[in-house]
């Protein structure tokens, strides 16, 4: 059956190439679009996901992770004293102006974290590849990702500049720490971050990160914190999901990517459907002959489905290769295409289903084919 299907597909090579191209483009579009979406979403929640906190506490009413309203240290101390909280740390996040070597300014996202301590911080720059992270506690010390060096015209660790007019020195370099908002992320110690943004007050805090005590239930602790005035606590996973959902729904980025992916599936469906149908029409007398000779409908349908599956398999392999090439090309543009094994499996299933549905018209045609028609001229 496979042999017949393969030979029927290959007999008209141009038609075969068009069918495989259709599936390949479809697979590539699905993988790249959904991969880009997941890449964006991973970036959107990367700071949260990189923390080792059990809970994130912010001001009630915050919608966006990046544009959160700050509060002051009193709230931090209230959180730290809630039963079940083993350890709490402050994070200050806000936007500031970074002075570039040519004299211009660029908006950056300051993430002020508490200086590393013996127990290990709940939030700190990760993937450090150069410099000395232990210096982050020094006044004016900042840590910036390698991917932002060109944009900020930094050429080495040790580069000095100004942030909101305050002297700053790059003491370490990370990799893979990207901002969803396009403003480069600049890590600093909490005190340094506060010095960059004096207008927020000397004790400004945006988030309190909480590590719950051993044996304590994080949700129960979150409920106790939620009972405090003006504060909202989320588990780290809930905070991550909330941030992803915010960016996905508020910006329409999710709908945009998925619409393109669906269009890709539709293109594949139409191309494969048309190719299979024209192939079925071309061999309709031969199919009729087989039916006349006693071949069951199921046997003939298997030939058509086999053609669909061969198209799906080859298209998936080529489309996956194209998606990997695209991923490499987009990396240069600082775009992350997150191609996970799960995405490949899901796309393979979508491709198989798409090609099977595309074969439906052909299947209906042969099911309705009257074997007596082979005697009619």
């Amino acid at each position, binding site marked *: 059956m496979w042999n017949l299907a393969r030979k029927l597909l290959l007999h008209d090579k141009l038609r075969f190439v068009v069918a495989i191209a259709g599936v390949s483009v479809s697979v590539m579009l699905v993988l790249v679009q959904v991969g880009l979406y997941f890449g964006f979403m991973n970036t959107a929640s990367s700071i949260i996901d990189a923390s080792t906190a059990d809970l994130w506490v912010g001001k009630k009413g915050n919608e966006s992770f990046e544009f959160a309203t700050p509060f002051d240290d009193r709230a931090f101390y209230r959180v730290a004293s809630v039963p079940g909280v083993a350890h709490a740390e402050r994070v200050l996040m806000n936007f500031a102006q970074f002075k570039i070597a040519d004299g211009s300014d660029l908006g950056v996202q300051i993430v002020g974290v508490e200086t590393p301590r013996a127990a290990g911080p709940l939030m700190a720059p990760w993937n450090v590849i150069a410099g000395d992270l232990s210096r982050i506690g020094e006044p004016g010390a900042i840590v910036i990702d390698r991917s932002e060096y060109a944009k900020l015209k930094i050429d080495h660790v040790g580069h000095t500049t100004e942030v909101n007019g305050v002297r700053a020195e790059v003491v370490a370099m990370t990799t893979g720490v990207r901002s969803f908002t396009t403003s480069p992320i600049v890590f600093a110690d909490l005190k340094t971050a506060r010095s960059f943004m004096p207008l927020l007050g000397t004790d400004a805090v945006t988030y309190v990160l909480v590590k719950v005590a051993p044996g304590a239930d994080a949700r129960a602790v979150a409920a106790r914190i939620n009972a405090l005035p003006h504060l909202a606590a989320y588990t780290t996973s809930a905070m991550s999901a909330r941030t992803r959902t915010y960016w996905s729904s508020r910006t329409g980025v999710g709908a945009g990517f998925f619409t393109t992916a669906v269009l890709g599936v539709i293109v594949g469906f139409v191309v494969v459907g048309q190719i299979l149908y024209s192939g079925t029409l071309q061999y309709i*007398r031969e199919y*009729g002959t*087989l039916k006349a*000779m*006693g071949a069951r409908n199921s046997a003939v349908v298997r030939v058509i489905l086999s053609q669909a599956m061969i198209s799906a398999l080859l298209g998936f392999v080529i489309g996956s290769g194209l998606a990997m090439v695209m991923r490499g090309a987009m990396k240069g543009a600082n775009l992350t295409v997150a191609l996970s094994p799960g995405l490949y499996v899901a796309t393979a299933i979508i491709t198989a289903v798409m090609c099977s549905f595309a074969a439906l018209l052909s299947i209906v045609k042969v099911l309705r084919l009257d074997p007596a028609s*082979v*005697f*009619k001229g």
Partner: protein
Amino acid sequence: MVAIAVSELGSISPTPKGTPLARLVGIGKTYGTGETAIAALRDATVDVRAGEVILIEGPSGSGKTTLISILGLLLRPTAGEVWLDGKNVAGLGERALPALRARHFGFVFQGFNLFPALTALENVEIALTMKGSKTGRAARAEATRLLELVDLGPRLHHLPADLSGGQKQRVAIARALGGDPPIIVGDEPTAALDTKTALGVMELLRALATDQGRAVVVVTHDPRLERFADRVVRVEDGLISSITSASERHAS
């Protein structure tokens, strides 16, 4: 003409000549209903016996195709009985018919109906597989045997495009023999062939009847083929106007 040494075909423990294989009794086929109804065939009775070649002749639209379609269980009659294996199968449902056709009939067509993408061997093999007669290596071996039987051993791996008309029809005949059906039904199998090739194909079909005890029922417009027939059934305006045996034709 491609010479066929009929003895080369050998025997498959042939059914004794004259053994009834199928019988159409009082067959009628009407298309449509009411005032638009058209009777394509009326009260047709034909016996199909082992070892015989039956030619069905008649003008276009006379009902020949309807007759062999009903005989081959491709079309259900609106009246009459179709006896096969001692059973009237005229009223059987669609689901039962493919298996009966696979077991009892092989078909040969004017246009060959070979998959152009498949070699001669593969065309026969796929038919065997899809009929459920044989699969895998057994199907390939049987397809090889059948093609050698019709003198196409050296052409096993040729595509239809690389075969002559006569060779293509031989492939179609080999395919029809797959599953060892006792009745071969041909729809103008020589119409697309030149005279020499056509006579060669008829010799082969004649040999299948004589040496292997199969019944061969062929629709044709070509009176030159009558010399291969044991009986000639003439159909006119939906009625069997005459059935003449070879001896009757010789006498006349």
